[in-house]
């Protein structure tokens, strides 16, 4: 891979100016360095603890290079460099990178998030047997993710798309002796595979229609896809045409890919299970970066979609956001709540893509990456401390269950404050980054619905409701973990507790991410999302000025009610002996059982497939092979028949002939006995017979 990159570099750079060439080589090294770390860790540092330093150094170097690339590319002309990877028939498959605003931003985001996670992991994983293996996998993931965001063609995109899935598989199943972990990673990979074959199908369709895999040739400003038309049932590109249905199939494929990777309904159920991986992994992969790849893909192929397809995206995104938020209300596993919250936020991003809020969607992707990663790292600390308590006191508890926690703000003061920042950002209250990005989505959803007609206004209202649900479950989480009394101590008054925020390896990443969860990084103004630099740089041509009433009403409404909801959550969960929700009822069960979706998938879909496969195997053995065996049997039967025929008919006839001859011979033999009397008798008999014949005849 490294050699490949070097070769690529020498071939690529000829056509570019000096500065562009430098930017390209920076980008290539930013991608390649984590791979170098992976290779070094694999080949040289197989069991060494230095592996952590190698990986961290690599991601730090990647970050520095990515920063340079970012400033060279941001709001500058697109840099595109490629060489031929291989040729199939007449089609050339390129190997190259495409640096525009989207890829430069993602190229920066990944190491910015990954670096604190690496540092955190050094402390978090220090007692694990698989310490060096962990960093090996982590570097492989970073390489795949960085590769995914910069490649310039669909074949490589697919390759890295699957590689991130593969490294996620490795990390979810990191503790491979744990049954739940290996079930979870299998599920994650197979569900992602559904998306992968969708993506593959879409790529194949696009390749057939346009004869190229090149992303900028396909989706660029004057690319092939925007030039296509759909008319009279035909989908016509500049060179060829095919029935319209295949355009929808291509969209369906892309949608499956997005739904699988970004955990959208109906392919979202792997993500909560993926929390079986180490929490630091959940923070990096299953909250901030990989799961955002689906949204990134939408951004890459955005010109493909027509109005109907965008509406489908909006509906699915909105539904996913709502459903996941309702599930998060009743879960008790700390990581599972965060996982559902991730699904919900990803739903917001897909919704934003669907309503045409392209810029807001990517903006939310970035802000969400910071505060969700932050929340997961905090969860890791809490879980780690609970585990300590569990091991110190030999308790049989689930360290992730929030029902055991409570009052931790006094024991983990810094963690508590950091959590508050993350939580407020997730809810989207002013002064945080989440406010800027999420309100942008809501406002544009309202504007979109107004232009579409009455039925569609349900979407922004559901999204609005979802953001209040978000406020509620986040408040519930914070209250249950950090406020009130420590419930474990209440039940077991004698347990020893000596826990704390941890050393700087824990604190530094948290502080960094917390700083990035506040507004100043993104916008001069804490209130108006339109001022955010990321938003402005992604603006599509149909820019919406603040002319619209929603721009004022929505944020005010959202935030006032959110504050009310938070207060309600405090009131319900914060006080001792307080009233609580009834833990019965249809809605409660629906939410607690995660809408019964997995309860449907496991027995119905999985069992049906297995049953079908067994039936087919029985068919194979009994019918197909049975036919072969019965042919053989027929052959043997036929040979038995011919054997019988041969023995009794052919040979029997011969035996008959011989026995006839023999009988006649034996009979005639008696005439030759040599006794004269017999001869006389027979002569007399013959004469008599002749005589009688003669009489009758005449």
């Amino acid at each position, binding site marked *: *891979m490294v050699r*490949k990159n070097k070769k690529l570099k020498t071939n690529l750079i000829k056509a570019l100016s000096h500065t562009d060439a430098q930017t390209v080589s920076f980008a290539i090294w930013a991608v390649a360095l984590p791979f170098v770390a992976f290779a070094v860790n694999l080949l040289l540092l197989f069991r060494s603890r230095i592996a952590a330093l190698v990986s961290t150094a690599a991601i730090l170097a990647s970050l520095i290079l990515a920063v340079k690339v970012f400033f060279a590319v941001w709001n500058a002309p697109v840099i595109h460099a490629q060489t031929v*990877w*291989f*040729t*199939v*028939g*007449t*089609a050339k498959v390129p190997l190259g990178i495409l640096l525009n605003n989207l890829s430069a931003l993602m190229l920066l985001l990944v190491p910015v998030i990954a670096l604190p996670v690496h540092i955190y992991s050094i402390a978090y994983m220090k007692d694990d047997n698989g310490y060096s293996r962990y960093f090996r996998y982590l570097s492989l993931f970073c390489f795949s993710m960085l590769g995914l965001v910069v490649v310039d063609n669909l*074949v490589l995109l*697919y*390759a*890295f798309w*699957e*590689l991130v899935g*593969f490294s996620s598989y490795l990390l979810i*199943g990191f503790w*491979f*002796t*744990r*049954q739940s*972990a*290996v*079930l979870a990673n*299998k599920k994650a*990979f*197979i569900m992602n*595979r*559904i998306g*992968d*074959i969708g993506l*593959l*199908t879409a790529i*194949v*369709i696009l*390749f*057939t*229609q346009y004869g190229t895999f090149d992303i900028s040739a396909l989706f660029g400003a004057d690319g092939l896809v925007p030039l296509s038309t759909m008319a009279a049932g035909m989908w016509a590109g500049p060179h*060829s045409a*095919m029935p319209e249905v*295949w355009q929808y*199939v291509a969209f369906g494929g892309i949608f499956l890919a997005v739904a699988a990777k970004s955990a959208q309904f109906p392919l979202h159920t792997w993500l909560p299970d993926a929390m079986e991986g180490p929490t630091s992994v959940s923070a990096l992969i299953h909250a901030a970066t990989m799961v955002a790849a689906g949204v990134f893909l939408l951004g890459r192929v955005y010109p493909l979609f027509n109005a109907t397809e965008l509406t489908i995206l909006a509906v699915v995104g909105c539904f996913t956001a709502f459903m996941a938020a309702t599930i998060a209300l009743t879960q008790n596993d700390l990581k599972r709540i965060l996982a559902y919250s991730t699904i919900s936020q990803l739903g917001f991003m897909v919704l934003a893509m669907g309503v045409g809020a392209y810029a807001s969607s990517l903006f939310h992707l970035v802000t969400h990456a910071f505060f969700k990663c932050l929340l997961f790292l905090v969860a890791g600390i809490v879980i780690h401390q609970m585990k300590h308590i569990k091991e110190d006191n030999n308790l049989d508890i689930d360290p992730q269950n929030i029902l055991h926690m409570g009052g931790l703000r006094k024991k983990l003061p810094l963690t508590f404050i950091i959590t508050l920042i993350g939580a407020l950002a997730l809810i989207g209250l002013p002064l945080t980054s989440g406010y800027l990005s999420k309100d942008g989505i809501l406002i544009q959803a309202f504007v979109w619905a107004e232009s579409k007609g009455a039925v569609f206004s349900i979407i922004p209202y559901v999204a609005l409701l979802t953001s209040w649900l978000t406020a509620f479950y986040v408040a519930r989480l914070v209250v249950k973990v950090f406020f009130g009394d420590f419930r474990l101590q209440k039940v077991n008054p004698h347990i020893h507790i000596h826990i704390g925020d941890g050393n700087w390896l824990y604190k530094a990443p948290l502080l960094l991410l917390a700083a990035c969860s506040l507004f100043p990084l993104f916008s001069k103004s804490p209130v108006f999302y339109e001022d955010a630099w990321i938003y402005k740089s992604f603006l599509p041509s149909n820019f919406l000025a603040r002319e619209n009433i929603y721009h004022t009403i929505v944020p005010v409404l959202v935030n006032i009610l959110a504050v009310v909801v938070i207060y309600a959550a405090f009131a319900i969960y914060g006080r001792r002996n307080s009233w609580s929700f009834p833990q019965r009822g249809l809605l409660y069960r629906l939410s607690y059982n995660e809408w019964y979706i997995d309860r449907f998938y496991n027995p119905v879909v999985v069992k049906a*497939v*297995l049953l*079908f*496969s*067994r039936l*087919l*195997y029985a068919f*194979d053995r009994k019918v*197909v*092979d049975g036919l*072969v065996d019965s042919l*053989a049997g027929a052959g043997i039967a036929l040979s038995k028949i011919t054997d019988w025929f041969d023995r009794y008919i052919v040979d029997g006839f011969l035996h008959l002939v011989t026995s006839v001859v023999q009988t006649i011979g034996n009979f005639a033999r008696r005439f030759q006995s040599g006794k004269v009397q017999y001869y006389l008798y027979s002569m007399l008999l013959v004469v008599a017979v002749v005589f009688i014949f003669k009489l009758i005849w005449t």
Partner: protein
Amino acid sequence: MNLLSLLIFTPVLFGIIILILPSSMRASYKYLTLAATLVQLVISIAIYLHFKTGPGFAGINHEDQFQLVQKLPWINLDLGSAGKLQIDYFVGIDGISVTILVMSALVMVVAAISSWEISSNLKGFFALFLLLDMAVMGVFCALDFFLFYTFYELMLLPLYFLIGMWGGARREYAAIKFFLYTLFGSVFMLLVMVGLYLSVTDPATGNHTFNIIQMMNPKNYAAGSVFSTLSHTTILGMPARMVGFVVLFIAFAIKVPVVPLHTWLPDAHVEAPTPVSIILAGVLLKIGGYGIIRICMGIFPDAALSSAFWLGLLGVISILYGAFNALAQRDLKRLIAYSSVSHMGFVLLGIASATAEGISGAMMQMVSHGFLSAMLFFLVGVVYGRVHDRDIYHFRGLASLMPRYTVYVMIAFFASLGLPGFSAFVAEAFSLAGAFKSSSANGLLPQWMAVCGAVGILLGAAYLLWTLQRMFFGTTSLKGGEIWKIALIDIGLRETLALLPLALMALALGLMPSLVFGKVNDAVLALVSFLQVK
């Protein structure tokens, strides 16, 4: 000395040495066999490196574009008024054969290494092994149909004995099933071959000929002969050329194997000893795909195009049927055997598309599957050799017990299920791309076939990952208890030496697909335009 002839007959030389050596030196047999395969590997790499590319070396239907050609008169009989019987020893290669030759040579080395486990009747085993080796190489090089057929039939004999004598419990059943199945196909192939011989005349000599390349030129068919494109002879109501195509296709489809002609394969694999399984899956199945490209499509392009839909359909059925059956298995070796059926379905689908992408993908899939199936069967052999059991449910948590082994299993599994970076991904992606493109490029296959084929990729992930989860992950628990735990030692140096080259090749082809595509591209383009001309 022609390199190809050297490649073909090197094993015979070593085989004779083994036959001459007394049994007291039987320990050396395996080293001699390994040496033979290594020599072959070196020769094949030399051939690969010297193989010239460019439109002038495309091959297919141009005799002068083949490389390393050797043509010697072999059987020449003057039949008086019936003309002259002309059979040549005619070998040569083009892009279609060269990559498969290298792949076969490497798989043979691995098979030789895995023959260490054979303990009985060594002289017989290794002599037959080398005879098989020769026949396989001969098949890929022969350009005279009679010679091809000779090599083709010559493979059956050693295989029958290798399975029937060194196999598992039901070895006799499996051996005879395999033998009769294949013979069933090749007997009818003989008839078509004779029919072709009688139809085709060599323009240079005016004699009838078995030359495969001359059979591709419609001008060489005598007017009114049975397989002439102009005569409208029918056999049982079907055009004669279609009958000829179907008969040849069935013969090769049994080899591939194509559903529903596949049932010999799971039995043969399950009963065969590991080295024979490796050769079976790695090399012999490719003869089916190779034969379809070289013989069926080369000689009967018109019939091939008009039955492309059915070929594609059989390909899709094989992909899905094989995958579903693999999902239902609890015998690891049988699971891999069915996965072979599924993966070889991509070959047929790619070929049926008659597009450059599809045929290139099919070629890649053959090479890739050669390496990966050899690896998979070797890996099964590792566990079976240690505890004589391979029921998936009898093992759990092998990863903790045999970490290095598990790494290779994961490489083989993920490579097989089409993880990018490994060869199978490129192969399957382009087989599907070709199949999809076919409808707008030449209208042979409907688009849904490619979409259905893609589902096979999903199922591949399902059965392989499920196996990983059941056998390798989780806490260790074995049916054989402590005895198994002691027996299941991690893989050693010899096993690593067999597995590592295969893994590296799969990786190399995945990262640099041009290793294969670069060599086959001219031939594929020539084949596609050859098919279109008709």
